[in-house]
């Protein structure tokens, strides 16, 4: 077995252990209600035992993932230079952030929300090719490691801030009545479901060997190229022809063509993936509503019903407050130093740079609302939730939707 194989095994083990730790945390907070006859002490013993198991598993997974980083680094380079490596790294920083915050507040419920999020993000990484790739000259710098690691750590803490914010909303908002807050909470749940169905769909169709092929005009080179879809084509390319579409539920050709202005290479495929995720997410959402006969946020809020609002509010704020300086240092200052060294300018209004600035401005507004204008509770929690959307767009959306210097591959 060579270092690379060892490294892949360590990564996969980390993933599996994170799944287990998610379950342990969920058992910790839901299991205490399994037996109605349990005394208060018995319940809290159950909670703290499973919380401890969950946290121990988290640490095991963390060590395993650090082992992956070290072995992959020894094999070739610090794994942070393509989408697969970066997304797995992002999940690592969420776990590190969670570990730090958990050791301060010891709240198993936090794990029951953070660890599943970690698992979702982690599995997203596996959509991208996991091969080691050669480093292009622009990436051959220590600043790659310093800039990306620090920024990702800040983003990991923003993820914990987001999760705690969501928990606070579930705790504070009365999810049994219809209100603006419940509607937006349901919408948040729906978005999370679309992410899940997106990942599951990609894996299922890839595993089943599904394929749809089209020709498409590449506007950059003016050449006809082949585009491969992994998911069934609701939307075909604006130009070009259908080569082959495996049948899925009777869909043997695209239902619609992408609008003509979407002429970027793969634009139609990305649109198709998005629509597919929104539709299947919607189907899953409706199914869950029918099965549970409750709002999803109502179910989730029962997990946090006994938490101290003040504590979750502080956790959300604390995570963001710790993350903010790290984000500034990594995503702006180190980024500027590196840009000055590699591109000859410290700031160039590249879309990724602009979005890092937008993230910074957003959390700056959050801190000012909170510190100077006394925003706490629901308003500030919504900002923590929205903030993470901005973070994820900066990290993933910019690469997939906007063009620029920070190009990675995309699905």
């Amino acid at each position, binding site marked *: 077995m060579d270092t690379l194989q060892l490294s892949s095994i360590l990564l996969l083990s980390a993933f599996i252990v994170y799944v287990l730790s998610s379950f342990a945390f969920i058992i910790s907070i839901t299991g205490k209600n399994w037996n109605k006859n349990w005394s208060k002490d018995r319940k809290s013993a159950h909670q703290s035992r499973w919380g401890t198991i969950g946290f121990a598993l988290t640490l095991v997974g963390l060590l395993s993932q650090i082992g992956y980083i070290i072995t992959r680094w020894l094999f070739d380079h610090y794994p942070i230079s393509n989408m697969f490596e970066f997304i797995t790294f992002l999940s690592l920083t969420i776990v590190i952030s969670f570990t730090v915050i958990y050791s301060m507040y010891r709240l198993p419920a936090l794990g029951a929300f953070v660890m599943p999020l970690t698992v979702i993000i982690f599995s997203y990484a596996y959509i991208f090719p996991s091969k080691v790739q050669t480093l292009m000259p622009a990436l051959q710098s220590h600043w790659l490691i310093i800039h990306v690691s620090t920024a990702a750590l800040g983003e990991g803490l923003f993820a914990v801030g987001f999760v705690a914010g969501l928990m606070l909303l579930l705790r504070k908002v009365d999810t049994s009545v219809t209100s603006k807050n419940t509607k937006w909470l349901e919408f948040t749940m729906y978005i999370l479901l679309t992410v899940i169905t997106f990942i599951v769909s990609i894996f299922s169709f890839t595993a089943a060997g599904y394929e749809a092929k089209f020709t498409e005009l590449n506007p950059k080179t003016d050449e006809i190229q082949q585009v491969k879809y992994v998911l069934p084509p609701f939307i075909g390319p604006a130009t070009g022809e259908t080569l082959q579409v495996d049948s899925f539920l009777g869909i043997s050709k695209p239902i619609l063509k992408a609008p003509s202005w979407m002429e970027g290479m793969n634009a139609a495929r990305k649109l198709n993936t998005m629509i597919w995720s929104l539709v299947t997410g919607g189907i899953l959402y409706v199914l869950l509503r029918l099965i549970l006969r409750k709002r999803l946020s109502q179910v989730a809020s029962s997990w946090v019903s006994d938490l101290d609002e003040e504590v979750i509010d*502080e956790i959300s704020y604390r995570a963001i407050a710790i993350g903010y300086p790290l984000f500034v240092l990594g995503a702006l200052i180190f980024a500027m130093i590196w840009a000055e060294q590699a591109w000859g300018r410290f700031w160039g209004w590249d879309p990724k740079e602009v979005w890092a600035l937008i993230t910074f401005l957003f959390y700056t507004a959050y801190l000012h609302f909170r510190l100077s204008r006394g925003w706490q509770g629901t308003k500030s929690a919504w900002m923590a939730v929205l903030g993470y959307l901005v973070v994820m767009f900066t990290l993933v959306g910019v690469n997939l939707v906007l063009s620029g210097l920070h190009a990675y591959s995309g699905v």
Partner: protein
Amino acid sequence: MRYEGAVRRSQSINKSIVNQIWNFFSSVRVGIYIILIILIVSIMGTILPQEHFLALTNPKAFYIEKYGVFGEIFYTLGFTRMYTSWWYKALLGMLLISIIIASLDRVIPLYRALKNQTVRKNKAFLMQQRIHTQWSTTADEIPYQLQKLQNAMKKRGYNVRQDAQALLAEKARFSRWGPYVNHLGLIMIITGALLMTSIPGWYLDKFMWVQEGEIKHVTGTPYYVKNERFTIDLYSEAELQKIKSENQSAVKRYQTDAILYEKVGEMPNGQPDLKQVMNHPMTVNDPLRYKKVRLYQADYKLSEWKNMCFSIINKKTGEKHGDFSVDLYNPEPSYELPNGLTVVIQDYFPYLSFNEDQEPINISSKPENPAFIFLIKGPEAPEGELSWAIIGTPLDEIHSENVYKANFKDLETVNTSGIKISMNKGMSIIWTGAAIFMIGIAMGLYWQHRRIWLCYEDGNVIMGAHTNKGWVGLRKEIMSIMKESGLHIPDDQLQLGGK
């Protein structure tokens, strides 16, 4: 609580214009709105690519053609060059003013207030605090209790002052200065960025192509650059095999061996007198740095035609009369060959084309389709014979009368480096600002200013505590201080207070 009742200028009643402007910008709410406006505007700027990434000759037509009506509106609103537009800079300027005024408005009153704190606060003030509690004790007991509490507080890093039977314990007051320190850093960054392009001679950003062997002047500076050699290294077979990559053309390194000269005077013939000041193999991520000037490996062109080699042949005898090489960028007027042969360049077309009347014309100074008209003089043609030479075109027929023939022999190519030259004298202000900004936000966010007040009144000890953030942590700390001092306060009696 924030400014301890000290009067801020913005709260004075004077309604002069200056004061109204001051009041407007001193508001944190206004500051947040400015931040949010910049945020939203910046998002809009990323919807379509900015002009400066596209190198367009007719940007308006491009945006209309590619994005339709939306593109036209986007272009007309100036969003395609948003980040360098006057109104974007004006927004940053307003943010700058807001930061300066809001900070000045608060920092001095805050300093005065924190400097002149009284230890004893009245009971109502303490009971208003978000964290407060009280317990009964006797006058005999109180000195011991206060002593124990003081010890426990000091152990946790508190600075404790006592005034009769009242205590004020305070910790990490410096974190209150964090916002003002980080605002100072921001002021430096924004000022540096706005200044650098406005002060002449501070900022230089140029790009130039330099051929191997060529020395070029960097306009606007006393510097000259020579490109000694440009190379591209690919990843080796072994390196690719190790990671099982099949990408044979993966580039490992772009490198220009560059020499930087400084002009120290002028030679008698008018040429600059150059002194070598630096040589450096420039690669991506490793620029040449000399004083404030940086040279970057930014682009390249491979194997461009540089020299064309010809040999003169006597068509009758087949005898070779020697070779000559013409620099396509800088051809000599004539070339002397052995056996009394001379080749005069009668005409040169770096980029040959033909007009409507089928006459040869030149369309570019770049030698991409070079053609020559030679005048070849030799013993057998003393008056000289005109001879065309066009690459890849056999012209023997039109030269059938000629004795001599210029045979194309060889083409020498050269690599060209795209070098970016930059100088920014504002950088030191920006980096210092960035360092100060980091220190400021770390001070403000990684520490909390905690204060605990205690006073004894009519058989009761009243305690109130305040922090600028992290209430749960303060509550825990107070619990452990109480416990260590032998005072048991039930959890629910230590009020965290309403919202």
